């Protein structure tokens, strides 16, 4: 009898304790770098918030509790939908943060909408996630994208950086019309960019020599690179999120290609990229989200604290850090954890994040605005990831071209 009473008391205590916390489900492929950064960013936010007393919900302080939702989405989309279901129904998450692979996030967005759970994205760039919000607001209004910019806006950043890169090629190599080759993995997130950019490049007085589309998991791109080399490309414009990004970087170095790689290369955003490419990826450049520069007053402290804690700089998936702080701000403004009350608060927010100033448009996508939120660009130089764009931001360094 005594053991029953003790068990009942323990249950009551556990129930009481969990009522004091705000449960945030962190969704990501936890065996992979993306999930690791989702979790690491969230842990930092949780620790900082809890240390400062938690989140003030209508006068009551509540601690943040993280729930680890391993979506395994790189391997399996059903695993991702199972994970979000589990986090919502069994673990009783109040909010959802994370996601990476567009195909999986599109599926998880449906589950979150079914349960009317606020879902802050920190990984997928696909525009359809925002289009759904605009077209069926009542169902999808609970979705907000924190990082990265949607792929259309990423295109704007790419064009901006490319202007700088092409200008340098014109000046240093005396090429009035630089030749550009596009190498884009076959995935749904690249399709809008691949369609939109060639005419833009032509307007920028660059000659597009071709579009190559290997698989996102291709382990060999020698044929593609031989063709690009033969076409005399000055710029190899990359749209790569899978491991093919490492293959491209490494094999370009092994071939001693004269063209410089710039674009989106998600693998090149990671600290492990240089070693994964066996130190061959000299001058590979990509747009990125975090570096030790002063995008906002929060950038440097966040990146340095992240590096100190985890031994590496954050990738854009660590945007879970900003997502959780954004959530905290919204909850404190609304004085409630009710998703329907938080949506209008988030829609009106102007939040200074570590990567830029975050405001949402009618699709709940981050507003792309120079000086506020454009992302940045980095280049690998002698084993170090060097930030070089936007040039006006304090801490940026020069972009370099391969020797000819």
């Amino acid at each position, binding site marked *: 009898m005594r053991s029953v009473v003790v068990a009942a008391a323990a249950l009551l205590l556990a129930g009481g304790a969990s009522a004091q916390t705000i449960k945030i489900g962190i969704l990501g*492929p936890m*065996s*992979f*770098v993306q999930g*690791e950064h989702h979790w690491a960013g969230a842990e930092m936010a949780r620790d900082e918030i809890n240390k400062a007393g938690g989140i003030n919900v209508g006068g009551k302080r509540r601690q943040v509790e993280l729930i680890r939702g391993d979506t395994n989405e*790189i*391997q399996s989309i059903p695993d991702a939908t199972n994970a979000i279901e589990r986090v919502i129904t069994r673990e009783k998450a109040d909010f959802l943060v994370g996601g990476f692979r567009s195909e999986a996030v599109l599926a998880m967005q449906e589950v979150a909408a079914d349960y009317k759970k606020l879902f802050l994205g920190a990984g997928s760039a696909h525009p359809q996630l925002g289009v759904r919000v605009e077209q069926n607001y009542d169902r999808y209004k609970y979705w907000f994208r924190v990082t990265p910019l949607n792929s259309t806006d990423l295109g704007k950043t790419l064009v901006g950086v490319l202007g700088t890169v092409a200008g340098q090629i014109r000046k240093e190599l005396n090429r009035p019309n630089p030749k550009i080759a596009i190498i884009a*993995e*076959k995935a749904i997130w690249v399709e809008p960019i691949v369609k939109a950019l060639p005419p833009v490049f032509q307007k920028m007085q660059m000659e597009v020599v*071709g*579009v*190559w*589309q*290997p*698989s996102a*998991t*291709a*382990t*060999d*791109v*020698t*044929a*593609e690179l*031989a*063709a690009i*080399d*033969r076409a005399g490309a000055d710029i190899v414009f990359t749209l790569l999120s899978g*491991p093919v990004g*490492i*293959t491209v970087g*490494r*094999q370009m170095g*092994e*071939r*001693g*290609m004269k063209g410089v790689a710039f674009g989106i290369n998600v*693998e090149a955003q990671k600290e*492990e990229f240089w*070693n*994964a*490419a*066996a*130190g061959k990826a000299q001058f590979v450049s990509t747009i990125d989200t975090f570096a030790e520069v002063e995008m906002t007053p929060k950038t440097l402290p966040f990146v340095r604290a992240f590096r100190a804690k985890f031994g590496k700089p954050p990738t854009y998936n660590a945007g879970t850090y900003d997502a959780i702080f954004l959530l905290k701000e919204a909850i404190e403004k609304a004085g409630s954890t009710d998703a329907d009350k938080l949506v209008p608060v988030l829609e009106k927010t102007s939040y200074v994040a570590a990567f830029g100033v975050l405001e949402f448009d009618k699709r709940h996508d981050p507003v792309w605005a120079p000086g506020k939120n454009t992302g940045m660009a980095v280049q690998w130089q002698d084993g170090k990831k060097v930030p070089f764009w936007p040039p006006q931001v304090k801490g940026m360094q020069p972009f370099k071209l391969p020797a000819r």
Partner: protein
Amino acid sequence: MLQDILVTGLVNGGVYALLAIGFSLIFGVARIVNIAHTAFYMLAAYLFYTLLVKVGLGFVLSGIVAVAAVTLLSVVCYWLVIEPVREHDAAVLIATIALGYIFQELMLISFGGHYLGIPSTLEGGVRLLGVSIPYQRLLILVVAAAVLAVTWFVLYRTRLGLAIRATANDLEVANLMGMNVHRVAMATVAISVALAAIAGVVVAPVFVVDPFMWLSPLVTMLAIVVLGGLGSLKGSLIGALIIGYVEAVTVFALPAGAYLKGAVALLIMVAVLLARPEGLFGVAFEEER
């Protein structure tokens, strides 16, 4: 463009040949369809990475230890997994699929889903017909040729080779003649997996090492051995070159469809099988035996 296709196709064909030869050998002489073949190749790549990058043993020692350890593991796997079900082809197929996935998950647990790079054994490269080729890829071609020659020598010029061919030809008669057929089968598995491990050690430096690296070459390798004729070493070599060239032509002729190179290679395989169900050298191999 023609010289690009010629050189790229040859180099990539060499990579594929190295992977396909061992797989073909084990089926040709022991009638074992070892789906875990490329998983052993993956294990060798991981072990090579660990010994070279983490332990710092050096290229030669790391390579030898990796090949020897994976070969030893294959013998253990043969005893535990393949031998008990060897009489049932479907069971062998399923058991080796399971083995491949077990290895994959073990690597995922041990190393995470990180992509790892192995430094090149040989740095630098050469320009051939205006096409730049890294030395590492030439090394793969040389190793593929050497492995083929040694395999041929072992099969056709040694007593072990004679025993392997005799067992493959008629297991019961070989048994009645006093041969230890289980030991012969085990030796065949060991030789076959050693070839996969050698492939892992020399090919991995041009690829990225990750727990799923065995799946993509598995499909290509199956296409090659079916195209060349199951069990035919000559067929595997020629099949590998055909697939290498088909992929190169696809990329050069259809840049925006480069991701289709695997599909086009499989299409060629289906077309050849429709015209010649035994593959290009299936019958020739039967005669050779």
